[in-house]
């Protein structure tokens, strides 16, 4: 256990004598590792965006020959793995890992070396996945459904590399989650009861537990796939005791859980930002926190929503629909309370707020569309059409890109001591918003009206979807430019941004109590936590004291 009382720290305690790269490679500090995760994730966001643009260029005109069918399938597989395993999950975890220990007033993490191993495994996984460029990337798609992913149908080692790469990264994420759970459980500052935990730290708790449950399920499935491919296993082979549907169940539990995790991350971020910038407490805090936990459970139980056209019993399909529709209540309550927090407040619309508000709006479109697609018979039309792609992208780009960028703009001053460029941030926001709407709204129509299928490397002019696809490709290019602007903004502002104090936004939670960037031990002293808004308590107390002193000074004036 770390000491939780104020302690003396000598000046110049941390003197680095090693080069920066050696520091980063050996550090177990949660702030350094969090930044490694966030920076790598931003790099892979750029790569994923390039891959999406290449696929959309192939789909710009009917029967295009820009990419070959195999080339397209490889791009698709890389895009899926990059955007989920190398961008979205590490981006969310990076913020959790950096911010949550600060928010609870911890001086470090409980299992720092486990977290360090986790980050190393993620980097190793990313390396394996991209080393496939030297031979053959996977061709099996975003979720490589067995038996297509078996050696009988894809005999080169692309799928093996995919399984090893995503497996290493997932194992790394589980390690990070275990460390986060232990830290949040054991290292909270004095007075930081669960009920006073900042919402973002609660989102970190829920997400970490979720990852500890779903991560090993994917790892088990990947192990079975590797045994099938390399040691003549029969887990996912039909006949002889295997079952292709088993892969679908196991992988969809993981992917659905990940979807929920990213939404929980986004809502945690948005809740902090909305409350801070309207200078109000989060409306119905306890309800929001309970809803986040409910989303994790119900959402993951809705995994069969992805299997509504598979030969599973109609009862299971109704169960999936029930779970998906039940999600309407926690999601609805979260959205209601986030918006209600704005009411009566004084909102300062800085860049983090823009991204947060945009994220709410885009996530609402994605979730509402998912709702329609969870109605069983409706899914019999919409499943695996571009309407499903559009719904997923609205929810996940809304959560991981807009929500993630909201977190970036909000916590960047804490991480670097510099503020991200405000006007470039605003331009980036509007460009991303326009790109997302232009890029993915047409796909709803292409999927809903014409039933254009997903993952296909081309389409035919006779299908009446050409116009939709042209617009969509243009939109994705705009989206790409918007994302690039924020990445460039971050690179530029890291050294040249305007200096930020320790508390640039007048935040209410403990991470704003320490320096920007914080010292390696995070806090020299900690206040006693008596409410969910410890920093506001301090500001109020200082205000009271100042007023009292002024009044006393007035009273002591001699009467003339």
């Amino acid at each position, binding site marked *: 256990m770390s000491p939780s009382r104020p302690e003396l720290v000598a000046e110049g305690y941390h003197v680095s004598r090693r080069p920066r790269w050696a520091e980063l490679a050996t550090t177990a500090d949660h702030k350094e590792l969090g930044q490694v995760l966030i920076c790598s994730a931003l790099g892979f966001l750029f790569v994923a965006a390039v891959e999406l643009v290449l696929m959309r260029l192939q789909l710009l005109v009917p029967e295009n020959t820009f990419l070959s069918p195999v080339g397209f399938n490889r791009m698709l597989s890389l895009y899926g793995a990059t955007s989920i395993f190398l961008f979205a999950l590490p981006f969310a975890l990076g913020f959790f890992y950096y911010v949550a220990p600060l928010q609870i007033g911890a001086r470090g993490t409980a299992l720092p070396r486990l977290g360090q191993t986790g980050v190393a495994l993620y980097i190793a996984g990313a390396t394996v996945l991209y080393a496939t460029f030297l031979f053959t990337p996977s061709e099996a798609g975003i979720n490589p459904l067995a*038996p297509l992913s078996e050696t009988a149908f894809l005999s080169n080692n692309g799928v093996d590399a995919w399984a090893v790469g995503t497996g290493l990264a997932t194992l790394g994420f589980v390690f990070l989650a275990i460390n986060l759970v232990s830290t949040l459980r054991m290292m909270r500052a004095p007075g930081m009861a669960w009920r006073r935990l900042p919402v973002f730290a609660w989102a970190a708790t829920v997400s970490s537990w979720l990852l500890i449950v779903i991560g090993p399920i994917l790892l088990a499935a990947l192990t079975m796939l590797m045994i099938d491919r390399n040691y003549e296993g029969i887990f996912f082979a039909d006949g002889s005791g295997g079952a292709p549907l088993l892969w679908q169940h196991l992988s969809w539990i993981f992917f659905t859980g990940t979807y929920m995790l990213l939404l929980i991350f986004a809502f945690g971020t948005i809740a902090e930002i909305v409350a801070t910038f309207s200078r109000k407490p989060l409306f119905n805090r306890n309800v929001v926190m309970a809803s986040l936990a409910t989303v994790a459970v119900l959402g993951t139980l809705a995994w069969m929503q992805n299997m509504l056209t598979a030969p599973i019993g109609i009862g299971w399909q109704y169960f999936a629909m029930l779970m998906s529709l039940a999600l309407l209540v926690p999601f609805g309550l979260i959205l209601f309370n986030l918006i209600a927090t704005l009411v009566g407040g004084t909102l300062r619309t800085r860049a983090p707020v823009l991204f947060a508000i945009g994220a709410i709006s885009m996530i609402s479109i994605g979730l509402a569309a998912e709702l329609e697609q969870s109605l069983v018979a409706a899914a019999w039309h919409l499943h695996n059409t571009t309407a499903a792609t559009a719904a997923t992208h609205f929810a996940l780009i809304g959560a991981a890109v807009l929500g993630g960028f909201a977190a970036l703009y909000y916590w960047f001053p804490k991480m670097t001591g510099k503020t991200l460029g405000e006007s470039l941030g605003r331009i980036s926001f509007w460009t991303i918003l326009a790109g997302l709407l232009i890029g993915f709204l047409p796909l709803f129509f292409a999927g809903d009206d014409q039933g254009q299928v997903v993952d296909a490397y081309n389409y035919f002019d006779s299908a009446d979807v050409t116009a939709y696809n042209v617009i969509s490709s243009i939109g994705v290019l705009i989206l790409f430019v918007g994302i690039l602007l924020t990445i460039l903004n971050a690179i530029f502002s890291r050294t040249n941004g305007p200096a930020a104090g320790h508390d640039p936004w007048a935040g209410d939670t403990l991470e704003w109590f320490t320096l920007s960037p914080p010292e390696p031990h995070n806090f020299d002293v900690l206040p006693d936590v008596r409410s969910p808004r410890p920093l506001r308590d301090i500001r109020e107390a200082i205000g009271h004291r100042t007023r009292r002193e002024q009044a006393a000074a007035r009273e002591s004036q001699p009467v003339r």
Partner: protein
Amino acid sequence: MAPHSPGTDQIDTLLKIGFIAATILVIAVNAALFFAVRRFRSERGAAPRQLLGSRGLQFRVGALLTVFATLLFILGVVFTDKARETPSTGDAGLASAKSEPLTVKIKATGQQWLWRYDYPNGAFSYYKLVVPFDTAVELELLSTDVVHTWNVNDLAPKADAVPGKTHKIVFSADQEGDFEGDSSTLSGQSYASMRTKVEVVSPEEYKSFIQTQKSEIEAAQDRVVGLIEEGKVP
């Protein structure tokens, strides 16, 4: 989507219900967000009201959402059940299907990257499926290799053909003509060209089609056997 079977009529209705529900939710959230942001911008001298929450309001919103979700669930079950019903064969349909329902049982087998259809009399066809007008047809989906999804939007629900599993769907076409379809689960390299076509014809044409198909297949078989027995490579 232009539904041409009783099942897809129900699917279409449920799609419309789902679309309306989704639209209501999107408009409600975004309108509330828009007005809240517009109304509660920061102003000089204004102090934020420190509202913590309201239990009554929360119960009301929760109850409203629960009612909305329950209603959607009920509608979902009702229309899904209707869409699953075995349609009855009409007067214009195949005569033998009227006395005994589901006499037209066709096997659809997905294989990389082609659909094969086996008819009750032993005839088969590739790519194109011929079915009689206004007659209940049961399609049994099978796969010999990877997962494929049989997808002819206007006639029948989308359904997966999974190796080692059988998956049955029923439909009855209410219009003669050609219906384009495809496969909608990534199945490898030539997935995008794995298309199919359903030709809905009159019962007489259907009967003659499967008869001709059968005799032609038998003739081709006899010819192959004859050639081999004569010692020639076919």
